[in-house]
């Protein structure tokens, strides 16, 4: 592992830790989220990964990365569609909040970081980010969003998307391993 790669990996871990810490801090300091706020976080979290996949489609030339990015775009769009349809059915209007704002702010930094990468360095940076991002989102769903959700249908939706996010993490880790051994 060269110095640039190691630096990139450390940055990814720091960003992921930052997301997890902010989510955990919020969970401890502000134990109540409304369902409208939970819905907003769910929408934002999915949209962020769709945006990452769009950067990958623009910057990568690697077939495996492009295919993974396509899967992320399709799956997170499907989840987003379910979340929006349920919010509409329940009459819930997603409400911006401290967690969704923090997610967006961190994502903005990540977007800049990914866009600044050379073609050669991009693929590893993207898949490292996918691993850390999915870890953070899974932790947020399990420790914050599901416990905070009042509405049973919204809670079930969050429980139903967890296996998909865990499969994404496993898939991303598999791809990441291939890049780390290159």
């Amino acid at each position, binding site marked *: 592992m060269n110095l640039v790669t190691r630096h990139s990996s450390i940055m990814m871990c720091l960003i992921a830790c930052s997301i997890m810490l902010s989510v955990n801090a919020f969970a401890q300091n502000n134990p109540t989220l409304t369902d409208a706020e939970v819905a907003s976080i769910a929408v934002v979290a999915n949209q962020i990964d769709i945006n990452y996949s769009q950067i990958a489609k623009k910057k990568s030339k690697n077939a495996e990365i492009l295919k993974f990015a396509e*899967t992320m775009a*399709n*799956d997170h769009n*499907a*989840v987003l*569609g*379910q979340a929006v349809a349920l919010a509409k059915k329940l009459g819930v209007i997603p409400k911006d909040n401290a967690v969704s704002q923090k997610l967006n702010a961190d994502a903005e930094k990540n977007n800049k970081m990914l866009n600044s990468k050379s073609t050669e360095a991009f693929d590893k940076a993207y898949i490292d980010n996918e691993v850390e991002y999915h870890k953070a989102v899974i932790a947020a769903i399990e420790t914050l969003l599901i416990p905070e959700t009042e509405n049973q249908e919204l809670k079930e939706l969050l429980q*139903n998307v967890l*296996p*998909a996010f*865990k*499969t*994404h993490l*496993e*898939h991303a880790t*598999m791809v990441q391993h291939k890049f780390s051994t290159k």
Partner: protein
Amino acid sequence: MITGSVKRRNSFYWLFSILFFINCSSDPAIHSPEAYTVEIKQMKFQPSELVLQKGDTVIWINHDFIVHDVTEDPGKTWTSSAIQNGESWRMVVTESSNYFCNIHQVMKGKLLVK
């Protein structure tokens, strides 16, 4: 004597015919094809492993709202192409094979032909 011999011969033919019929009807090589269902839900093939016989049919049903496929692993010699939510795909099994979802490559299953 002649009548007794003919009777014995007829009895032998009857016995032989009955034994032949019993033997044929219980021949394990003759198998009525069966249909098995694999449910795709919660990002898993359920059951992930099926033991079946050559000529049986497997029907995969996608219950996830995410699109999946069923593809032979590792050669991709057969594939279902995309299976949307609520849709299914069927295949007559001719040999044992491993398979996976080529969209989510960590989802794996196995068909074992006895």
